[in-house]
């Protein structure tokens, strides 16, 4: 058994006993944000596209979930499905436009679209405007088999959803599709000259990322029983960037670590008000100036440097 398998095994065991140690709702929120951050990172780390508007998928999926479960009074599974499909459709439209520009323009375009969705949500009748959708009742899953009123039971559902999303991302990255995506990220012209339609791959990655962000957003609405404007705002888009950045851009475990750190921080600093913004901003500045690889990235490099002399003696 090597170190990596051991690490994953221990983390899994810890995840199983976690709700008996920590507050389940906190853990579920953190898992939703972790999946959200992973979805964002799929796009940035493996397609080289930084979206600054991912909150539109996360937040809109929450509204879709709330609309299906509360207003239409349907099963929560259908709500999750609506969240995922709705976010994917939104991703298809905005992605098709955004990938027409690259680099920094891509970030600005996604940011602008997210702002447009935000203004739309403020005015649209089905979102409840400033109040949002409140009191989305938790209904049992799988036709009554899984009672979700109990936080601990729901926790395992959320954990399963997270693992599904995480596993899906892992599969994408290690598939031929993921390899082509990386080739496009590293040198688009070369990939195009080899016959790959770069735009189609980028769009597919964008839609996948949007759909997974939607899964995270719909799950969060299920857990917390509300969907609000905050989740579609630019602040949330910035937060998910921060989570991925803290953990390490382009690492697969980084966003999970980053999400737990940021959600924990917000939990403790809830009373600090505006100072949360200041601290978040300071983290951005410090990481960009000094620790660009993020926590997981820096640790991996430290580990590699430490173990390097033993395997290959330097001369």
């Amino acid at each position, binding site marked *: 058994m090597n170190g990596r398998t051991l690490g994953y095994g221990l983390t899994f065991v810890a995840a199983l006993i976690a709700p008996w140690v920590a507050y389940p709702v906190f853990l579920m929120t953190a898992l939703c944000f972790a999946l959200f951050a992973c979805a964002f990172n799929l796009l940035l780390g493996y397609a080289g596209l930084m979206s600054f508007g991912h909150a539109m998928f996360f937040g809109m999926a929450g509204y879709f979930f709330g609309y299906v479960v509360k207003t239409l009074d349907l099963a929560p599974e259908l709500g999750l499905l609506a969240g995922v499909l709705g976010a994917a459709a939104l991703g298809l439209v905005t992605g098709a*436009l955004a990938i027409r520009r690259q680099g920094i323009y891509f970030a*600005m*375009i996604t*940011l*602008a679209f997210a702002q*447009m969705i935000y203004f739309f949500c403020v005015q649209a009748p089905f979102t409840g405007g400033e109040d949002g959708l409140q009191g989305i009742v938790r209904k049992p899953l799988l036709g009554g088999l899984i009672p979700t009123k109990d936080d601990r039971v729901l926790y395992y559902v959320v954990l399963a959803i997270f693992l599904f999303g995480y596993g899906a991302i892992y599969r994408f990255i290690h598939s031929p599709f993921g390899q082509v995506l990386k080739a496009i990220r590293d040198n688009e012209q070369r990939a195009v000259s080899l016959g790959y339609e770069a735009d189609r791959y980028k769009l597919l990655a964008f839609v996948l990322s949007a759909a997974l962000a939607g899964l995270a957003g719909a799950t969060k609405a299920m857990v917390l029983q509300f969907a609000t404007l905050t989740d579609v705002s630019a602040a949330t888009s*910035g937060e998910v960037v921060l989570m991925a950045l803290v953990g390490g851009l382009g690492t697969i475990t980084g966003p999970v670590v980053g999400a737990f750190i940021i959600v924990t921080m917000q939990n403790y600093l809830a009373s600090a008000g*505006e100072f949360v913004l200041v601290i978040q901003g300071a983290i951005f500045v410090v990481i960009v*100036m000094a620790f*660009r690889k993020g926590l997981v990235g820096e640790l991996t490099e430290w580990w590699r440097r430490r173990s390097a002399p033993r395997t290959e003696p330097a001369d």
Partner: protein
Amino acid sequence: MAQVALGLVNGAFYAMLSLGLAVIFGMLNVINFTHGAQFMMGAFAAWLLLTQLDVPFWASLILSPLIIGLFGVLIERLMLKRIYHLDHLYGFLLTFGLALIIEGLFQWKWGSGGAPYPAPIRGGTDLGFMVMPTYRLFVVVAALVICLATWYAIERTKFGAYLRAATENPTLVRAFGINVPRLITLTYGLGVGLAALAGVLAAPVQQVSALMGTNLVLVVFAVVVIGGMGSIMGSIVTGFGLGLIEGLTKVVYAPASNTVIFVVMAIVLLVKPAGLFGQTR
């Protein structure tokens, strides 16, 4: 017609801010996310100068951009200059973080509510089709003058020629004995000063508040995407044009007025992905 004229006032701010962004991006290769916060700081500086030191509006018009511009120079010297060799995204992230810090601190000190700033020019001017507050008319004219002066400074003066040359090929310009790093610092200070100047002009029109620049900067990003950052005149025309379009939308279908700029952006991306005045790069 009245809404259209008021749209021009918004357009004046879009033009000034997107102009500053374009100037900074051209020289530093950084999208200055702090632009909205610096706009807000300009307005706040004017408000503080007035309420604490009794400095009149007209003096603030010069003082405030100088103070905030110096602050910008400090940021460039301490932070931005260390990340020029990295991908553009890091500049974006760094300035985003700075904007969060600044806006958070202002909110903490002065709350998120607004403070009024008395208009320095009272009364209205009859334009034939409507009576417009004279101050707003002044804002439109002043913004036009400032924009054209900036255009002139960059396209027609020696300083501007150095600037454009250094944008094209910094190494060569350096070989001619021109201090390029200083030129870059000055450019950032100039861009930030422009944002602050827009902030001072905006103070009597809007409330002075910690969040006055937050949403504005997002709209200005869309303006920049529509216009493309390649051309100075392009930024000016796009800024005023989109203000007009926004004003017209208010007349036709008011609820769409705050999303119309983003819709225009989507259409431009479909038809001319590089932006109206941009070159692909």
